[in-house]
């Protein structure tokens, strides 16, 4: 499986600020890019996902930006809240595959 590189490893943001997490990939066959959110003691849960035919997808305060030529995608959390404090994983899956490849995760702390 091709690697998905995620950064930063940890992120501290003040309440109301913008949280940005970046991921990069090498496999051009990837065609589905989900983000998962994991709270302590819980399993990861799907947050938002994008396909490469669009450059941006927004759901509430969460936005995925996708740059196909650079093979990069990012998660933006607007107006970050303490309740957003969690670990975020990006992932990628290629067409015809059933096993997504996950990034190493970003621990986000939003200070009140």
């Amino acid at each position, binding site marked *: 499986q091709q690697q998905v590189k995620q950064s930063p490893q940890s992120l501290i943001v003040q309440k109301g600020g913008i949280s940005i997490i970046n991921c990069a990939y090498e496999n051009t066959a990837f065609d589905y890019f989900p983000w998962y959110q994991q709270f302590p003691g819980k*399993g990861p849960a*799907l947050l938002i996902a994008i396909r490469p035919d669009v450059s941006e997808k927004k759901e509430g305060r969460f936005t995925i930006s996708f740059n196909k030529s650079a093979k990069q995608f990012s998660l933006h959390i607007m107006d970050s809240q303490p309740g957003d404090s969690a670990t975020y994983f990006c992932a990628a899956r290629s067409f015809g595959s059933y096993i997504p490849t996950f990034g190493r995760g970003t621990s986000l702390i939003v200070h009140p």
Partner: protein
Amino acid sequence: GAGVSQSPSNKVTEKGKDVELRCDPISGHTALYWYRQRLGQGLEFLIYFQGNSAPDKSGLPSDRFSAERTGESVSTLTIQRTQQEDSAVYLCASSLTGTGNTIYFGEGSWLTVV
């Protein structure tokens, strides 16, 4: 059940002992995954089941690891002769189809090998 159920939630075992971890997927989900999450690390794929097809075992780290699934229901992950490096959270997940679009995770089984 409403979600993916895993048991035990926590397990402490002595080095060299065998352990079994159980996963009960969401009813009707044909695909089932096992992942390992070491402290502060990402999600490491272990094994994938889809219906009655042969499982994809390509992620199993050694022959001490094995998994079974009965039809499209319960799965058991077995770790033989546990080592300290096996300490991790073992996450089970299921999805409605085999495409992996939306994977639903359980809360995991936290394994500590002492």
